[in-house]
Each structure stands twice: as C-alpha cells, then as structure tokens.
C-alpha cells in the first residue's frame, strides 16, 4: 500500500513537472473560472432583462395614463402598451447557455395579433454568435477531453518507447501500474473540473438540487467516458503517435463532425417553411378584415370566444372591440401554420435528442441544456406560456373593449401577471437517458479497446 502511494506521488510529480501539462492546467483553470464568472454574469443579465421588461411596461403605462385624457377608451391605450412576460432562468442556465444567446426570455407583448410579436429575438451580434459561445458546459464537454487525451495517450507507449517498461514491470504488475497511473490522472482532471464547478456554484448561486446533481453526474460520466476511451486505446501496443492520432481523430469525429453533420441532416430532413408562411398569413388575415363587413370578422371571433357572442358591434363606426377582433383574425389565419411550425421544431428537438444518445459529448451537452432549460423544448414551452398569457390578457380586457371603458375605469393593478412556463420535465427525465447512454458507451469502448488493442500490454 505504501509503495503504491509512493508510486502515485512520483507519477503525480512527474505529471505536474511537465511544462505542457502545467500550461494546460493553468489555462483550463483560468478559462474554467472565467466561464464560471461569466455564468454568474449571464444570470444577472437575464435578471436585468426581466427587470427592464417590467419597468419598461410600468413606465409606458404611467406615460400613457398621464398623457392621454382620462376619458380615452382603454382600447386606444392598449394599442401602445406592451405587457411583460419574463421567464425566470434557472441558475444552471448561466453554465449551460444553450440557445439563450439568441432567444429572449423577457418578451413584451401587446394585445395585437400575437404571431407578429412572438418571435422577437435577443439583440445578438451575429458575428460573435458565429464565432461560437463559450460556457462552462462547453469547456467541460468539448475541451476537457483533449486534456484527458494529452494526459493518457502515451500511458503505456511512453514507457515502452522510453525503454523503461521492462524496468517498471519489475516493481509492479502492469495492470496495477496502469491503474496507478490512471488514478493520478483522474485526480488531476478531477481537480481541474472541481475548481470551476465550485466557483460556479458560488457565483451563479447554484444550489445542489436534483438538477445540479444530475448536471454534475453527467459531467462526471462524460469525463469517465473519455478516460475509458483513452484507456482502451492507450493500453494497446500502438505507438504514441498512432494513439494520439486515433484519439484526437475520435475527438474530432464526436465533438465536431457528428454534431455538425447531424445539425445539417436535421435541417434538411425537417425544413421550416411554416416560419415564413405564418408571418404572411397573419398579416394578410388581419388586413383583409379592413375590407370586410365588421359582422363577418366578429362571427369568426365569436367562434373562438362564444362567451362574448351576445355582444354586438356597430357596422358604421370604429370600435376597439372590432379592431382587436381583426387582430385575432390574423392569429386565426396563421393558426395552422403556427401549429405546424411548432410541430416541426418539436420534431427537430426530438430527432436531435434521439441521435445525440449515440454521440457521448452531444448526449451530455443536450442533457445539460435540458437540465438548464435552455434548449429548444424550453423555448417552445416559453412561447406556449406567452400564448396563454396573451389569452388571459384578452379575457381581462375584452369586457372593457366591448363596454368602451375609459382608461380611468380600468383596474390596471389587476392586470394578469405572466405565469412562467413550468419546467417541461423533471431532472431525472432530462438526465437519465444521457447518463445511461454515457455509461453504455464507456463500457463499450473499454470492451472494444480490450478486444481491438491486440495482446495486452503485459
């Protein structure tokens, strides 16, 4: 036992004295702490965006109520008033940003046709987005494996090539020695992972709930997969350079090629013409109504809202109830295309989730996004919540529109508050499939490595 510990210490010393390893550790720790800090900033940015939506609404309401005569009909003021719909983000969202760079979770919507407002996006700089995002999840999923490869590709071959293999075999059994060398590397990588994760936990306010637990487990399993793969390849009799090329080639295939190829295939298999279709239809559906009788528009409206079908709208004067019913007609015209649009996106998401299970880094990354609720599924759930909010606003204001209520008779404090989208799925459902896939993949590469690497290294 003592001898083994001494060997472990010696190996650790040898590892950390290498300039290459030292530089890599420093770089990884620096980037790790940076991304952890950035994660906290991301959360703050999301929070201040939600505040901006809320105060923007309050300021606008105050301005409108103070600048319009108190007898103005509510419908006129509602034309200008955009209600906030801020979706709070999970602490994990700072670390696994997913699609939050392009999507806003703090939409503001008016009582007008919703389909024209629902697809606003974040003020993203396309050039930065094209360069790629860097968060802690990407660092640990995409870059850390290269460090693992660098530490392990010559686990055995370096001893053999250096002529020390026969010597060290005198002191310990090869398998045990391999386990020892591996252990020291696992410790080093574990430290490189633990530091930024701990920093992130304090900066991003990460509490160790089920979601964070699954996230840590997935990162650990994914790291384990790369160790298994490296061990499988490195324990064979190939040269160091062959090992390095095989492992880096595998990294490129799993981390760059497979995701890029799957993304392209997904886009080709599931085209989304509905996005443009619904835009055209909503605009046409609303504006056509100006050239129709008011009764015709109202009939369509009453089909969707039978509870108001006893109200009447005069044919020869402008009324706000009719105006918003025309807007509703726009949404009605786009309804089919909009549903088809959501269906395609859900298909894309489901397809990506299924295929990702075959590619360990993808499985881990997509599962982290699901745990952080920053994936496409979460975005669609948010849009659904905004839809429901729009309906609640209509329910609240339509009686006022029909009654032509002046703004001073509306209870502005009683306006429905946005109810955020519930989390689409529990932590276990989000994390379990990927975790299983990672465990299976690890077993597979270990077994394949043992079989393919030819005679064992002893």
């Amino acid at each position, binding site marked *: 036992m003592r001898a083994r510990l001494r060997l472990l210490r010696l190996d650790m010393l040898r590892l950390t004295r290498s300039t*290459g390893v030292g530089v890599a550790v420093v770089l990884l720790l620096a*980037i790790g702490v*940076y*991304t952890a800090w*950035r994660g906290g900033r991301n959360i703050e*940015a999301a929070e*201040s*965006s*939600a505040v*901006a*939506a809320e*105060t*923007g609404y309050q300021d606008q309401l105050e301005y409108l109520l103070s600048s319009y005569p108190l007898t103005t009909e509510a419908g006129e003021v509602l034309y*200008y008033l955009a209600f*906030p719909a801020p979706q709070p983000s999970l602490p994990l969202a700072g670390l696994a940003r997913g*699609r939050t760079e*392009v999507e*806003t979770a703090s*939409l*503001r919507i008016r009582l007008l046709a919703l389909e024209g407002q629902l697809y606003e996006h*974040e003020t993203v*700089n*396309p*050039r*930065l987005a*094209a*360069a*790629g995002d860097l968060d802690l999840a990407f660092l640990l999923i*995409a870059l850390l494996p*290269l460090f693992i490869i*660098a530490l392990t590709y010559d686990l055995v071959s370096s001893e053999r090539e250096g002529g020390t293999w026969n010597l060290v075999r005198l002191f310990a059994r090869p398998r045990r020695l391999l386990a020892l060398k591996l252990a020291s590397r696992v410790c080093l990588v574990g430290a490189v992972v633990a530091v930024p994760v701990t920093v992130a936990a304090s900066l991003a306010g990460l509490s160790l709930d089920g979601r964070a637990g699954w996230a840590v487990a997935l990162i650990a399993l994914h790291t384990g997969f790369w160790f298994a793969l490296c061990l499988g390849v490195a324990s064979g009799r190939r040269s160091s*350079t*062959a090992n*390095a*090329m095989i492992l*880096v*080639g595998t990294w*490129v295939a799993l981390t760059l*090629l497979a*995701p*890029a190829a799957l*993304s*392209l295939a*997904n*886009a*080709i298999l599931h*085209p989304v013409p509905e*996005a443009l279709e619904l*835009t055209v239809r909503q*605009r046409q559906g609303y*504006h056509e109504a*100006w050239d129709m009788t008011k009764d015709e528009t109202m009939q369509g409206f009453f089909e969707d809202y039978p509870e108001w079908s006893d109200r009447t709208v005069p044919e020869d004067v*402008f009324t706000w109830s009719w105006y918003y019913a025309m807007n509703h007609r726009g949404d009605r015209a786009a309804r089919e295309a909009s549903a088809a649009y959501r269906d395609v*996106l859900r298909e*894309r998401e489901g397809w*990506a989730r299924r295929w*990702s299970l075959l590619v360990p880094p993808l499985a881990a*990354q*997509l599962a982290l996004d699901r745990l952080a609720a920053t*994936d496409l599924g979460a975005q669609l759930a948010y849009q659904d919540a905004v839809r429901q909010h729009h309906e609640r606003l209509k329910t609240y204001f339509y009686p006022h529109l029909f009654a032509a209520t002046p703004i001073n008779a509306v209870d502005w404090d009683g306006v429905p508050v946005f109810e955020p989208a519930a989390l689409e799925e529990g932590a276990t459902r989000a994390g379990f499939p990927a975790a299983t896939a990672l465990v299976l993949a690890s077993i597979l590469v270990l077994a394949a490595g043992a079989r393919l690497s030819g005679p064992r290294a002893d």
Partner: protein
Amino acid sequence: MGLRNALLVARRQVGSVREDRYVVFLLGLVIALGVVAVLGARHHAASEAEQRARYQAMVERQWLEQPDRHPHRVIHYGFLVFREEAPLAFFDPGVGAWAGTSLFLEGHRQNTANFGDARHATGMLRFGRLTPASVLALLLPLFVVAAGFASVSAERERGTLRLLLAQGATPAQILAGKVLGTGAVAALAALPIGVATLVIAGSGAVGPVSAGRMAGLAGIYAAYLAGWVLVTVLASSFRASSRSALAQLIAVWVVLCVAVPRLGASVAGAVHPLPSRAEFTARVERALNEVGDSHNPDDPFFRSLRDEYLARYEVVSIEELPVNWGGVVSREGEAVTSRIHEEQQRDLVEGQRRQDRILSLAGLLSPYLATRDLSMAVSGTGPEAVEAFRAQAEAHRYDLIQRLNDLHISEIHYENDRAQRLPREHWAEFPTFGTRPPPLGGALAGRALALAALALWILIPLLGLGVARARLARVGVERAAS
C-alpha cells in the same frame, strides 16, 4: 540543382505520407467530408433561397392585389421583405444563421428581422456547422498536422536526416522539400472542395458569382493552409521527437481554432455587453414618448407644427388648409419616429462594432478567426451584408411610408378623411425591394487587421524556418561528430 534536391525531398515526403495508413485514411475522410459538406450545404441553401423567393413573390402579388384602400391603411399593411443570401452562402454561410430572415416593414416603427437557421436549430449548433468553409478552415489544418508532424523529426529519429545532409542536400533544400511535399498533400485534400465549389458557382445555379470573389476565396484559403504547412514543418524540425511535435501541433490547433475564437467572442460580449431586447425596446419607447405621438393631434410637438402650417398658408383652421392636415401629421410624425428608431438602432450597431473590434484583435492571435472573417466577407455573408440589408430595408420602408403619406396629403380630402379610398391602380406605382449586396472592395477594406493577421501567419513561421535551417545544419554536424 537546389530545386531538384528540394523536389526530391518533397517526393520523399509525399511517399512517406502515402505509406502511412492513418494519414491515407484521414485524407479519404477529409475529401468525403468536403464533398458531403458542399452537397449538403448547397441543398440547404437552395431550399432556403427557394422558400424566400416564393414568399417574396407572394407578398409582392398580395401588394398589387390590394383593393382600393386609404393610404394610411396601407401604411399599416406595410410590406414584408425576406433577406436574400449571397450566391456563395452555400460555401460559407457566414453570420446568416444568426441574422433574421423576414422583416415586416410598416409605419411608425422599425421591426427586427425574425427567424433564421439558428432560431430553428437545436443545441447541437454550438459545436459548429458542416460547411465547405468549416471543413477547409477547421479540419484541413488538422489533416495537415497529421500529414506533416513527422516530416523532419522522423528523418532525424531514423538517422536519415544525417544521410540526406551527407548526400549534399542543404538544410534549406530539405525544409523547402518538406514544405512542398506536405503542401502538395494538403492541396490534394483541399482540391475536391475547391472544384465542387467552382462547378456549383460556375453553373450559375446559385446566382452570379464574380471571378474576383472566387479568386479571393482561393487566395485566402491557400494562404491560410500554407501557414499551417509552414508551422507544421517548423514544429517538426524544432522538436526532438515526432511525438512531441504532434502533441505541440495539436495543442496549437486547439488553441487557435477552438479556444481563442470562442474565448474572444465571450470576452467581447463581456467587455461591451449589448442592451437586452427588453432594455432596447424600453429605450425606444422612452425616446418616442419624449417627442410625442403622431396619433395624438393634441400633442405639443404637433400643435406647434399646426401653427407653422396655418401661418404658412395664411389660414386660421386646419380645415381651410389646401393640403390634408392628417397626412401632414402622419408624414412629420414618421420623420420623427424614424429618426429616433434609427438613432437607437445606430447605438446598437455601434455596440456590435465595438464587440467586433475585440474579436478582430483576437483574430491577430487566431488565424482561423481572421480567415473565417475574410472568407465571409468575400462570400458576401459577413455582418456588413446583414447590416446592408437592414439599412436598405429601412430606407425602402421610409420611402414607402412617406410616398403613402404624400398620397394621403394630396389625394385624400381632410373632410371625412377615413371614409375615402385610393384607387388600387396606385399600388403598381411603388418600387419593389431588392437587396444590393455590399461590394467586395468595401468588405475587404474594413478588414485590414484580418489581412495583416493572415500575412503574419505566413511570415512568422517563415522566419522560424530560417532559424530552423541553421539548427538543422548543427543537428547534422553534431550527429556526425558523435
């Protein structure tokens, strides 16, 4: 004689690559990927372009088919424009995925362009995209490393370097030969993508592509890959063993192609954060509230405008004006709101340019970033193309709205204003929208830093090879002496 020696070494290098089954396998893989990327990206770009053209035609038809309408009605009906991608978008889609696709032009407000590939993509997108440009810029360097990391070091390890020197080859000839040999293999890997791109662009199926743009792309990627060839041979000649040369080159690739671009983008975003969409919207609202509201005729801004008009036409009430006062209010209001929107938009774009400058500095460290930047500029898919579309669409919007306001002023009587309609023949008088892509020269002029980065990427390893030449001679002498 010198050239012959160099060519002999080059042939020797190509021969040793041919014998290496890993490298041959990688070559096949890179070529296959390149072809798949060209075909896949072409297919995707073509179906996108077809969709946008189809809906654009539909919108134009709907515009002409409008019934008789009041001009202010049409101001709200507005117009929809779809961003056309540049012909070379199939080669390098640039920033297109992150820029909106459809933009609704209407009176009183500036909308943002919605939809786009990135909005419809899953979380996979962050690992990158499979496009001809990304195969060339990201994967080919790794292949060059695989083909050349052992070029000099293996000769040294086997003792054949001494042999070559003894046979009369100078260090310069050996290094030149290694560069030529590795470069030939790299060219072989890049050729299929180049040919496929040329065939598609030349066929005219994607739209007119100028020879200048094609030559520009060829030059950029040739220079970029040449830099990788030089760096690879340099590392191989400097490092004691092939193993450490390979490890060092892979580390360089990871840092330059994966880490620095993302880190640069992240830092740029942290140093100059953009206002969020919600914050931006609130700013626009605040600015608009300060000047007044064209829908509200009692607003102070419009009251002073009314007094000005009454004085100019020497009448006492707006009913007596020879022009339609409602149309005047709408036109002046539009001028004010457009200016405010444009100011806010300019702030936003300036914020983006500040971020871009930091990314350009990162491009000095990462030739990958500089190359991608130049590549999208030459392909016509860079941020300036997106901004040009936005600015041109806004100019079109403003022109459209003000023409309608002018019709309102001249053709519609003030009395009983809203009940009147303009005959539908007027709709055909409006110009249609077409994007004018920014010229190639302009796109490149703003990228001096990226061009400098690419030049340095070749110059620095060349200087390094000069040093390596002297060392190589010593290696030969030392070995011979020992």
